[in-house]
């Protein structure tokens, strides 16, 4: 019997008992659903973290010149941490020195920030990110304004008390009011609102709109950083290659400025989105590593269910086996028939599981902030695993069927 005959026969048998067949493949269905959904979510998260999270947090092709790492993964040993804290902080002078030395065309923005309250009249928006920076920051962060304008280089030079606010500030303080031209108080000092940034959405449920941006020279700058000190200098290149070049130049410039000898370690840190992603990568690796365990449990259960169903099928269809043997079916024909039937059943379960897995991934994407993207390899894996489970589960029952004595089998009721 040719294999496609066996597959056709399997489909005919499965179709004849739809409900029973469905229940027997539920285990595999669930296992593959799980596989597809989790892989989709992890893949989606990966992409999301790379595209949006990292770029949203730092900026596209952007790196930061810092005193010490901001994003760390895992526990940092006490002595390492203390070493970081002893490093000199990044100063205005460092920033200007780097700007003079770097040849690669890049955009710079000095940056300082802290959490503060922003007040308007009797209302206060607590825990807003107050950012002290330069006009280039708007370009680096790709902030588009829905009203007003960003502050200018002149306003920075003059240390004007102006502020560009995020949506969350406007929604909290200025409901139904045009924010442009209004005065808010930050740390007791008045600032005039000159711009409103378009909504930035949220990341894992956390709003990205809770900020207020002022010139780093503005009157309240002491609230966020000591005079002459920066949290970091943001440096954005046009593309990843230029970013790497620029990083080399910045490192060289800083080593010169800090008078480091060739053997000395850097006493500053260049942070890219890669370091922000490191922690996530660890989590996703754990998920992907443990996934096979979770999936294999349901697949083993699914396989056992299918094996039982096939054993039942062999018992129920003893007479059919007898007829087939009388008409010339060899052992291997019967073996093939039941193995293929089991594999087909299981593969059907896997296909359904792929369907429900994709649906589940999209549902998760729709109702939670978690993103999801279907990984083609997980679909291939799902089908392969489905067929494999079916073959393994089918071998024992099929072997029993193939060994039946035709005389006894023909007599069965």
């Amino acid at each position, binding site marked *: *019997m*040719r294999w496609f005959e066996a597959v056709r026969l399997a489909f005919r048998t499965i179709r*004849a008992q739809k409900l029973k067949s469905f229940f027997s493949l539920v285990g595999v269905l669930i296992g593959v659903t799980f596989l597809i959904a989790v892989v989709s979510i992890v893949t989606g998260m990966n992409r999301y973290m790379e595209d949006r999270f990292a770029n949203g947090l730092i900026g596209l092709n952007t790196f930061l010149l810092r005193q010490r790492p901001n994003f760390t993964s895992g526990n940092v040993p006490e002595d390492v941490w203390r070493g970081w804290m002893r490093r000199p902080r990044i100063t205005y002078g460092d920033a200007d020195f780097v700007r003079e030395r770097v040849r690669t065309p890049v955009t710079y923005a000095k940056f300082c920030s802290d959490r503060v309250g922003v007040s308007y009249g009797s209302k206060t928006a607590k825990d807003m990110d107050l950012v002290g920076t330069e006009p280039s920051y708007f370009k680096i962060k790709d902030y588009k304004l829905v009203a007003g304008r960003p502050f200018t280089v002149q306003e920075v030079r003059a240390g004007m008390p102006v502020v560009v606010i995020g949506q969350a500030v406007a929604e909290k303080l200025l409901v139904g009011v045009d924010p442009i031209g209004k005065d808010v108080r930050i740390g007791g000092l008045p600032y005039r609102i000159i711009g409103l940034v378009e909504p930035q959405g949220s990341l894992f449920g956390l709003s990205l709109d809770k900020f207020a941006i002022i010139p780093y020279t503005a009157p309240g700058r002491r609230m966020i950083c000591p005079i002459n000190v920066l949290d970091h200098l943001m440096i954005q290149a046009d593309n990843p290659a230029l970013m790497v070049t620029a990083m080399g130049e910045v490192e060289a410039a800083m080593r010169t400025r800090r008078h480091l000898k060739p053997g000395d370690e850097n006493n500053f840190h260049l942070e890219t989105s890669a370091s922000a992603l490191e922690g996530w990568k660890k989590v996703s690796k754990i998920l992907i590593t443990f996934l096979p365990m979770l999936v294999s449990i349901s697949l083993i259960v699914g396989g056992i269910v299918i094996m039982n169903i096939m054993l039942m099928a062999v018992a129920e269809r003893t007479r059919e086996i007898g007829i087939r043997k009388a*008409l010339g079916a*060899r052992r291997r*024909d019967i073996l093939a028939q039941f193995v293929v039937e089991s594999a087909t059943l299981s593969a059907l379960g896997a296909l359904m599981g792929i369907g429900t897995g994709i649906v589940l991934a999209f549902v998760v994407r729709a109702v939670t902030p978690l993103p999801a993207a279907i990984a083609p390899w997980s679909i291939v894996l799902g089908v392969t695993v489905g067929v494999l489970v079916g073959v393994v589960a089918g071998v024992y029952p099929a072997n029993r069927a193939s060994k039946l004595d035709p005389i006894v089998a*023909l007599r069965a009721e």
Partner: protein
Amino acid sequence: MSEPIIRIRDLVRHYVMGSETVQALRGVSLDIQRNEYVAIMGPSGSGKSTMMNVLGCLDTPTSGEYWLNGQEVSRLTDDALARVRNKEIGFVFQTFNLLPRASALHNVELPLVYAGVGGKDRRDRAAQALQIVGLADRMHHRPNELSGGQRQRVAIARALVNSPSILLADEPTGNLDSTTSEEIMGVFRELHDKGQTVIMVTHEPDIAAHAARVVVLRDGRVEIDRLTRDVAA
């Protein structure tokens, strides 16, 4: 005389049942020529079922020789026996033994599936076999949509589709009323007239009377072997 289609010598078949040994066949010798129409009779326990199983290559003898169409088949492996059943033997059973969920056409196709005949050729040959037994218009019916007589005709078509050396029928009318039985016997006669070798196991004398030769078994041995006129007389 030409080589017989079946040549059996000193056929013995023992069964071990628990501590007892049942001697179902105790040395049967028999020749059946091409295009013979033979009825094998005997009371229950005479060994006729065992005889039927051995003739049908479903069982192998404990000792003795069985030559079928020039081939010694008594010592073959299971798979080799399956080949012989597929090529040389067409079975007709008392209980029809059709696959309940398959159409008449598909049932008739089965031996061809295992013979490795595929596609259109297979369907054509199966359809042709159904036409021979007068069921061309019932091809796509399932067994439960057919009468007993029609079911047995499907079984006959299935038995014939591989052009076997022998048509082996086990109580072919056991589940049929007398009118239908006559019909089926008519089909057998026609096939025999066209040159088919027919061997029929039955315990009904009036059914056996349709055969040209009757072999009566008793206690695992051939008791009577003569032409029907003699039996009838």
